[in-house]
């Protein structure tokens, strides 16, 4: 113990280490029957770290380019020892991360953790969710297989539907009129440089805000606890909550390992731009609810093109979603119920549409 203490005091002398970690020591986590939901943010962060680490490992062998990408991933899967494990974990962890990020968002919504003063935390969180989906979209193309190729084609096509800016945006994303090797190069750049940079900044901001504001208490409980301070129960963040969080991380690791070993992510068939799209092509599951919605909108609504309408509607919903906290009254007693209703509806809609999209031909 003593060498460790020496290092600490050395660090403390140089830049005030103890002051820096003091807030962590004082930090507490409110304890109630819904406290479990507080783990989700941490798990998402953990999976993000896994993504960064396995992503760096994949970069050792991956090569972008229409002629090489597929072969290099195949090489990782077959020739590199444990390459299959690294890639499978990267793919599975990506999907789990998107799932936990969504779950985290809905838990925040239902526990009403987005209210004043946490609007910025919410905004940074929703932006992070969008970034994570961007990670998913760009990363999906990188193995350059048929499914990825056509999913990207369809996905960028939808972007092109936006009036005025859509077409230039699509060309920007594709690096040309069509999905080609140029698109792959771009997506690779987004995936390993642009998005990680933005995401790291936003994660730091998000954590800083959580740190500054403390952990939110559900409004009902807050009222009770302010009325009767003796009923207030909480847990120290460090080490008690942190150790539990670590257990959650270990469970996540176990699940990831099991998924990777039992269901290794398959590689598919190399993309060939000249073959026709396979029938019933679908995007990844987290885009499915949007995809299915766009499919259900009739081609013409009144005088507006159905696709344009759908894309605009999703854009608008996304924007309103970011701004959601500002529709909430700051009087806890007058908490509007409609936001909860909206959250339930959104959850049901997304789940329902995803399942429908999954089952639909």
């Amino acid at each position, binding site marked *: 113990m003593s060498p460790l203490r020496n290092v600490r005091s050395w660090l403390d002398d140089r830049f005030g280490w103890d002051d820096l970690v003091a807030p962590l020591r004082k930090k507490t986590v409110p304890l109630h029957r819904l406290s479990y939901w507080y783990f989700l943010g941490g798990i998402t962060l953990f999976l993000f770290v896994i993504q960064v680490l396995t992503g760096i*490992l994949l970069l*050792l*062998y991956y*090569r972008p*380019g229409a*002629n*090489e990408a597929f*072969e*290099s991933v195949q*090489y990782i899967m077959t*020739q*590199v*020892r*444990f*390459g299959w*494990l*690294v890639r499978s974990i990267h793919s599975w962890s990506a999907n789990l991360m998107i799932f936990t990020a969504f779950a985290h968002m809905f838990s925040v919504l239902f526990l009403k953790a987005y209210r004043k003063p946490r609007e910025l935390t919410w905004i940074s969180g929703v932006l992070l969710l969008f970034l994570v989906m961007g990670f998913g979209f760009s990363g999906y193309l990188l193995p350059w297989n048929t499914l990825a190729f056509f999913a990207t084609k369809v996905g960028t096509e939808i972007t092109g539907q936006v009036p005025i800016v859509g077409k230039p945006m699509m060309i920007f994303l594709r690096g040309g009129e069509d999905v080609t090797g140029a698109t792959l190069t771009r997506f690779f750049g987004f995936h390993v440089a642009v998005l990680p940079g933005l995401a790291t900044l936003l994660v730091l901001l998000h954590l800083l805000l959580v740190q500054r504001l403390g952990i939110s208490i559900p409004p009902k409980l807050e009222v009770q606890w302010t009325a009767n301070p003796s009923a207030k129960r909480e847990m120290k963040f460090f080490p008690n909550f942190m150790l539990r969080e670590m257990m959650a991380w*270990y469970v996540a*690791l176990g699940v990831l390992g099991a998924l990777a070993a039992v269901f290794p992510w398959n590689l598919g068939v*190399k993309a060939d731009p000249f073959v026709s799209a396979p029938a019933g092509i679908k995007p990844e599951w987290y885009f499915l609810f949007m995809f299915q919605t766009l499919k259900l909108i009739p081609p013409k609504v009144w005088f507006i093109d159905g696709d344009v309408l759908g894309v605009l509607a999703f854009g608008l919903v996304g924007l309103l979603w970011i701004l959601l906290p500002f529709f909430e009254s700051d009087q806890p007693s007058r908490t509007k119920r409609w936001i909860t209703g909206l959250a339930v509806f959104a959850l049901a809609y997304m789940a329902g549409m995803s399942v429908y999209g999954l089952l639909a031909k």
Partner: protein
Amino acid sequence: MATSDPGMTNPNDRLSAAVPRRRFVEVLLGGGFLATAAAFVYPVLRYLVPPKASDLGSDSVVAGRVGELKPNSGKIFRFGNRPGLLIRTATGEYRAMSATCTHLSCTVQYRDDLRQVWCACHNGKYDLNGRNISGPPPRPLEGFEVQVRGEEIFVRRRREA
């Protein structure tokens, strides 16, 4: 709270059991951490070691070695997950093309007596540039680029202009 551990439920043992129990937890935790660390680090270290089978990349493979083919002969090599045909013409030139017949996907071969590429399935014939010249094949065979580097003959897909 330690009573939740099913092995140590007797409250009378609490004091006497405290020390070994702490040791036990520490050993368990330390051992677990070491074991998991090993389970994570080992694959990563193995991953970092470059595999022996060098990655030629992509669209280029070693189809054969210089001197392996006599003039006026051919051989099948693996190109991605399809067969390719490497030919050394009577004048000693190397040619390479896809070995999958464009008719019904049989594997074609070089016929030294005809000096043509021939498909045994339905008597389809191609010239040494892969052009279909007789029989059922509807299209030419895809031609590949051949490069001789040192002792090895590299074949790669033609880049689209």
